Each structure stands twice: as C-alpha cells, then as structure tokens.
C-alpha cells in the first residue's frame, strides 16, 4: 500500500488528516452571537448518526495524524544517523515552526485531551450512553468560570498557531498543488488561516471567561 510504503504517500496521509480543524472554529463562534443558537448546535450534534460519524472521522483522522507523526519522526531521526552535527544553524528562510512540528503537536494534543475531558466527555459521550444531558451553555459555564482555564487554553491556541502556520501550506505542497507562484501564496494564506483560527478561539475563550466569571454582563 503506497500510503504506508512510500515517503510521499505517508506525507499525503499527514496532510489530509491535518486539514480537519477548518469547521470546528466556526461552530464555536456561534456561542458568542447567541447562547441559544449554541444550544441548538449542541442538540443538533448530539447522538445523531451524522454527528457520531463526524466525530469518528475527526477522531480517526486525528489518531492517524498522531500515529504517523511519531512514525515519521522515528524514521527521520534514523535517516539522520547516529552522529549529530556539532554546529548547526537555521537558514533564514526556514520557519521555526517547521522544525518543531512534533513538539508543537504534542502541546496541542495535551490541550485537546483536557478539552475533550471538559466538553466531549460530558456532552456527546453521556448521550451516547443514553443519559440525558444539560444545555450546551451550562458546560461552557462550568469550564470557563474557573480562571486557570483561560491561560491553559491560550497556550494551546498559541501552539496551534505555529503548528498551522507551517502545516497548512505544507499540506498543499505535499499534495502537489504548489509552484513558484503558489508556494508564497499558500504560505501567506497559512499565516492568515492560523491567525483567524487563533483569534476566533482566543476571543471565544476570553469572552466566555469574562462572561461566566461575571466581569462582563452581556
């Protein structure tokens, strides 16, 4: 199977499974506009077959992305050989994020586990077990009324910014949809997309924290 046997095939798997966060940020943004609408989305994405299927595809893609990340890193370290360079430099065209994708990914992954424990384990999981659950906004309140949550989330989002700023354009390069014109374009779009995702998630987290700790009342 060329998706496991060839280096380009393995990178294709990384790129496709990496492009999965595109919709998620948009659904959360709804909660800022209207908490009722957020409840409606939570209701809609309960234990319906399409929500479960979506979750499985998301989780599967994520799991494959992580497994491949460690597998590829092990192969790459082996290819580098046993002797390391005594002096190393970073050429100025090389992004810092591109050399630290695994570490950034691990930070994002730690954040995600926390995030799933705080939300998914209380929202979709109980419903799958047949229990009745509360309104979506009650979980937002339970989480964001605690002050420590915000800084931890912001660290996760920052790691995500760096991860996406390289990962997004890299995915299109791997899929062969780039050339001399499009490499700089994708790199630019990549920074924009990373920033949009970061700002959306960060604004949401900051808003919920201020709202549910009673600092602002709107």
């Amino acid at each position, binding site marked *: 199977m*060329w998706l496991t*046997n*060839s*280096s*380009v*095939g*393995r*990178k*294709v798997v990384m790129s496709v499974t990496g492009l999965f966060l595109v919709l998620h940020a948009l659904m959360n943004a709804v909660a800022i506009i209207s908490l009722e609408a957020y409840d409606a989305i939570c209701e809609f994405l309960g234990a319906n077959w399409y929500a479960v299927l979506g979750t499985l595809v998301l989780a599967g893609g994520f799991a494959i992305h992580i497994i491949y990340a460690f597998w*590829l890193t092990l*192969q*790459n370290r*082996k*290819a*580098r*050989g*046993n*002797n*390391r*360079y*005594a*002096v*190393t*430099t*970073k*050429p*100025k*065209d*090389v*992004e810092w994020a*591109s*050399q630290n*994708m695994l570490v950034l990914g691990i930070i994002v992954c730690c954040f995600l586990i926390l995030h799933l424990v705080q939300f998914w384990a209380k929202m979709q999981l109980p419903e799958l077990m047949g229990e009745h659950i509360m309104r979506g906004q009650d979980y937002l309140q339970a989480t964001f009324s605690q002050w420590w949550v915000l800084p931890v989330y912001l660290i996760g989002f920052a790691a995500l910014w760096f991860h996406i700023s*390289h990962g997004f*354009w*890299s995915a299109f*390069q*791997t*899929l*062969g*949809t*780039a*050339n*001399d014109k*499009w*490499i700089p374009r994708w790199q630019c779009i990549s920074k924009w997309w990373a920033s949009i995702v970061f700002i959306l998630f960060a604004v949401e987290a900051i808003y919920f924290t201020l709202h549910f700790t009673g600092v602002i009342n709107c």
Partner: protein
Amino acid sequence: MDTSISFKLKVWRQANAHAEGRFETYEMRDIPTDTSFLEMMDILNEQLIEKGEEPVTFDHDCREGICGMCSLYVNGHPHGPATGATTCQLYMRRFKDGDTITVEPWRSAAFPVIKDLMVNRNAFDQIQQAGGYVSFQTGGAQDANAIPISKDAADEAMDSATCIGCGACVAACKNGSAMLFLSAKVSQFALLPQGRAEAKRRVKAMLAKMDELGFGNCTNTGACAAECPKNIKLSNIARLNREFLCAKCSD
C-alpha cells in the same frame, strides 16, 4: 585590511567507516584571504605530511563548482556560509582572524563516512540508475524544431538540471531527506515532452529507490533549498509530489 588570517580549525577525524570519530583542532597561521577553502585544507595537509601525520581525507575534483564532488559541513552550513556556492568556491575572506572554523562531514545514515570528511554518496547514483534518464531509440536525428517546447518549460527544466548531486540537501535536512535532489532529477525530464513518455515509471521507480536507501521523509522545512549551492527551488518538490500522486492515481 589584513590580507592573511590566523584561526583554529576543528576537523572531524575518523579512521574508517566503523571507527569512532572525534574532533581534532589545528592552529592555522597566516592564511591569505584569497585562498580558497580547499586550498586551505591542502595547506593543512602539507603541514600534517611534513610532521609525519595522516593528512585529512576530503572529496574534491573540478574546483570550479560544477562536478558536485566537494562537500564539507562548515560552521553549520553545507558548503560553508556562502550562498549559491560550493565549498571549492568558498574563500577564506569569508572568515575573520581568530575564528574557530568547524569542519564536519555530511551526516546522514544514507551517506556513511568512508574516512574523515569523505562520505559515500553512492546512494545518489543508485537513485539515478533507477530511472533518472531517457531511453533513446537510436536513429536519424529529427529536425530541431519538430517538437515545440515553450521557453518557460525549457528554462525551468534547465534550472532543475543544474543540480550537481553533491548531497548538500540531505546534509542540510533535519530528516536526512533526499527530496530536493530527487525532485530536480524528476523535474528536468517531467517538464519536457521527451521525458513525458517514461514519466510515470520514472517517478515511481526513483522514489521507491530513495525510500529503500534509508533517506528520511520531507517535512517541507526548506533548509535544502536554502543551502543548495545551485539554488534548486522548493517548487520542484511540489512537482515531484504531483507527478507521483498522478502516477499512483492512474495505476
């Protein structure tokens, strides 16, 4: 301005492929700044021979930047701190009096050290042999303009063909990947009608050989293109990916 400099030279010494390597430091005195880096290495070797020591082994041949034989990882850069130049085109005026210059071999599992600074780059030959050529049916030469080729495609193919196969891309890559080399060798044919006939077979065979030889996976970091002495572009790797995916999809 000083016309000669003195510096410390930290050189990787390794007796053979299986021996443990180590750094040896040599004091270099009054080296003219017009000396090329390889001439400076020659001066060091003359001194070592006079003292009855083993000279430092390093690869070199044409000394004009076209053969791809010289290597050396100097101060954290393959082919040294100059851009768009090979080690033989590097001059001592790039360095300052009192510097410590660290010289290492290419470090990659696919390029094992033979001795000191010389590594075995036979893996590149094997990749080329797997498909980096055009099979010709011999016969009368056809008219020069029988196959029209756009100027853009011809230029791009020529740029890709300037790869000298020195291995700096592998040396620079944190993953020890040979994708820039492979992509240049695939691109120079993929862009031209003469190369299209065997394009699918070529890209699959060469990529399979590269993977088999233990090179790493590309993470699009771009250190290869930044350090390439022939300025081979990163877009070649996108073309290689495209060629490979199209070949696989049409299987």
